[in-house]
């Protein structure tokens, strides 16, 4: 353990991490948000989506610090149903993070698989996959995600949709972001596949599948990880946008975007806290993740050393 720790603290990456205070702040903020949101069942003062514990008479209480009407049990106020805003944010952030991470993983697996096949097999397969990628790249990712969501809604009933909404959203966002991974992996594979170690593996008779996964894949993962970190912020924003538009997660399972949409309906009458606090949380989360992504990209880029 200590040897491992020593190797880490002795590395270039650690040095570049330490020397940028902004990155350290971003890392601490990200860790804080992840910890607090994943411990929300323990830390949150209320369970906002259990109807037994909420009461309409607690509705629309302002935050404690700005108004004498506030109560300390609801530090950031309550919404029109009497749900505690702070607890909703903690649970909502957890859902936003889970959906964001899951859709990045889906996009990454799909992109890596198609990129490997495209680069290694070549020929017609390569041409077909890359032309599909070109067409998809013509459209912004959010449109593709909306389209997929709309198609799924056309195929199943509304009630079923609410039950599987999380999977639909993860699939839709995942499918809309695979192109970048596929292109990067394909590019690296084209370089790698003519190197001696791949030829050697081919000579000793390994199957193409095994060569792709065991030998080529480990050598193309660097750029993929950077894209994944940079895309995490985008994926979180996409989910929030879809939920805000009312085609994402339902209000029975609210993410940060759903919370902002619920609050937006009450904004005109002056109840700003229901919208603004989830909004700040979302912005802080995405900013922190983006800063980490930017740093990782620069730190792993040998040209900038």
């Amino acid at each position, binding site marked *: 353990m200590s040897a491992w720790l020593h190797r880490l603290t002795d590395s270039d990456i650690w040095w570049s991490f330490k020397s940028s205070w902004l990155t350290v702040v971003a890392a601490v903020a990200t860790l804080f948000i992840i910890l607090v949101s994943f411990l929300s069942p323990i830390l949150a003062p209320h369970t906002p989506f259990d109807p037994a514990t909420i009461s309409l008479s607690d509705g629309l209480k302002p935050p404690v610090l700005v108004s004498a009407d506030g109560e300390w049990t609801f530090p950031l106020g309550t919404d029109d149903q009497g749900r505690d805003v702070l607890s909703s944010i903690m649970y909502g952030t957890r859902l936003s993070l889970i959906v964001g991470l899951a859709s990045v993983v889906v996009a990454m697996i799909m992109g890596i698989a198609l990129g490997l096949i495209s680069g290694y097999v070549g020929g017609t397969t390569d041409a077909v996959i890359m*032309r599909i990628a*070109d*067409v998809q790249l*013509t*459209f*912004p990712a*959010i*449109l593709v995600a*909306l*389209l997929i*969501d*709309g*198609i799924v*809604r*056309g*195929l199943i009933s509304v009630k079923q949709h609410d039950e599987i909404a999380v999977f639909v959203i993860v699939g839709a966002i995942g499918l809309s972001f695979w192109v970048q991974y596929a292109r990067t992996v394909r590019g690296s594979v084209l370089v790698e596949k003519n190197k001696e170690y791949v030829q050697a593996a081919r000579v000793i008779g390994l199957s193409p599948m095994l060569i792709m996964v065991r030998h080529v894949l480990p050598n193309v993962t660097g750029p993929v990880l950077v894209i994944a970190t940079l895309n995490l*912020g985008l994926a979180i*924003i996409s989910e*929030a*946008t879809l939920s*805000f*538009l*009312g*085609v994402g997660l339902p209000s029975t399972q609210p993410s940060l975007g759903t919370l*902002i949409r619920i609050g*937006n309906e009450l*904004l*005109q009458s*002056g109840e*700003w806290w229901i*919208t*603004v606090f989830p*909004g700040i949380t*979302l*912005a802080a989360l*995405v*900013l922190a993740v*983006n*800063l980490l992504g930017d740093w990782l990209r620069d730190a792993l880029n040998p040209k900038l050393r």
Partner: protein
Amino acid sequence: MLVFILRRLLQSVAVLLAVGVVAFFLFRYVGDPINAMVGQDTSLQEREQLRDRLGLNDPAPVQFLKFLGNAAQGKFGLSYRTSEPVGRMIVERLPATIELSFCAAMFVLVFGIPMGVYTGLYPRHWSSRLLQAISLIGVSLPTFLIGILLILFFSVILHWLPSFGRGQTVTFGWWTTNFATISGLKALILPSITLGLFQLTLIMRLVRSEMLEVMRTDYIKFARARGLTNRAINFGHALKNTLVPVITVAGLQLGALIAFALVTETVFAWPGVGQLFIQSVQFSDIPVMAAYLMLIGLLFVVINLIVDLLYFAVDPRLRAQGGAARVSGH
């Protein structure tokens, strides 16, 4: 050059065909058009007759050609939700989206390019650093959140600007415009800023990094040695050479503006095609989705084509090489 243009045209047609295939499959196989047309008490036999009459039993390629033919004439059938012709619904709402995107694009260019030039010329000045920091925050704020915060500040708290709708519009033929009345112009301000802010930061960062690069080159030093004024160097020599990548990105972003207008339109209850699309996704109104898809596809293809042709106008080197080489930084 002619070969290049022809090849680009062919590519564009191929992309459009692919989009058409996707739209056709949506239209034909997701959701049953017959179900949308008849009541529940229609017998299976009557349904089958209707199917025959509408040509839904024809082979798929024949149906696809018919679909493309109709689409070219702007016929996309009836909406499942309102039973209106989809073509007319889109045409009615198109002016709102185009005017909004146009204003946002103006906002981006008029503020983004000068801000980029300034931060590129004086990268160490405190105001440049401030602009850089703000732009980083701008990239991290989702569009809808910017809209909500603007509404909160300028309409709910200050009561300066309207928070939803187009205000009073004036109709010229089939085109409804915001530009003719004060309330229409006021209604444009907040949505345009919301829509443009993300693109503004993008253009600013791009112009900045291009300017930084150009200012280091020899011909700028030579221009200084010739004793040209700063103004002539900065705008006549430096800015001109940053334009190629800026045109690419600005062109592609114009498409993104129109597509992203759907988020802004929802926030501000702006009656454009984006809002129509969101409603059609919520109700799974397939004909509207298919029509919107085709429209956006056409738009992106046309914009990409124009951007590629603009290279020739801007970069004389390309004309000399007959268009064999593409510009770097694509």
